[in-house]
């Protein structure tokens, strides 16, 4: 009995007890409602579609302009290319005449076809007397893989 009355250093609550403790649920109602969130995302979608459609139409106009410039330049480029082809074919014909001079029974510039239509030349036709690099560049120069 007397041991309980002896002053021992104990951890005791402060005099007057502890203060009030809030233990109730705290789920505040805040933020926009669900309907308004739907409305905001729907509106943002519509704005996005509208911008997309406008920009696509602008892109189409720009692309048509590019195509028109290409079409306008096409005759010039085609004429240059044709001139170059014909020049190379002529040079090849002369080289062939020089090379096959002594060979018996060889007709220079003989066409391999029975028809006398103009057959467009292939890459090998034009570049067979030159280093293979040029022919490969013409055939595969625009590719990234071969």
């Amino acid at each position, binding site marked *: 009995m007397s041991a309980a009355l002896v002053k021992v250093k104990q951890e005791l609550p402060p005099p007057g007890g502890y203060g009030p403790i809030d233990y109730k649920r705290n789920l505040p109602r805040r933020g926009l409602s669900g309907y308004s969130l739907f409305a905001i995302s729907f509106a943002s979608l519509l704005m996005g579609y509208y911008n997309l459609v406008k920009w696509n139409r602008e892109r189409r106009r720009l692309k048509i302009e590019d195509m028109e410039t290409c079409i306008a330049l096409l005759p010039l480029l085609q004429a*240059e290319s044709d001139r*170059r082809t014909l020049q190379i074919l002529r*040079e090849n014909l002369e*080289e*062939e005449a*020089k*090379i*096959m001079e002594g*060979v018996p029974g060889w007709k220079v510039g*003989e066409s*391999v*076809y*029975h*028809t006398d*239509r103009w*057959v467009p030349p*292939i890459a*090998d*036709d034009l570049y*067979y*007397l*030159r*280093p293979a*690099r*040029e022919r490969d560049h013409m055939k595969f120069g625009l590719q990234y893989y071969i």
Partner: protein
Amino acid sequence: MPFWNLQDKLGFNVDKWIAYQSSEQPLKRSGWCHIFEKEWIECSSGIGGTRARKECSLEFEDLQECVTRFKKVTRMMTILAQKKKLIKEGKYTPPEHHSGKPETRP
């Protein structure tokens, strides 16, 4: 020539575009040997196989040459072999524009 010709009657095109080169192609892009094939088909249609083999042999040979390019390649090989021989003997030097330098004209 086709027997039932369902594709024409019903209006669709399942395999006409791939049956032969000269058929209607998308974007109007013709095949490599369109003209030779067209000539051969026009020459040999309706006259039967035996007659076609006899009468249309020139067109057929042209078509074969266009597709396989055999005669052209043999010709080029002959010329190149002769050129190599002449270079070895020292009788022929290739001209300057064949040496692979980049062209300065358009």
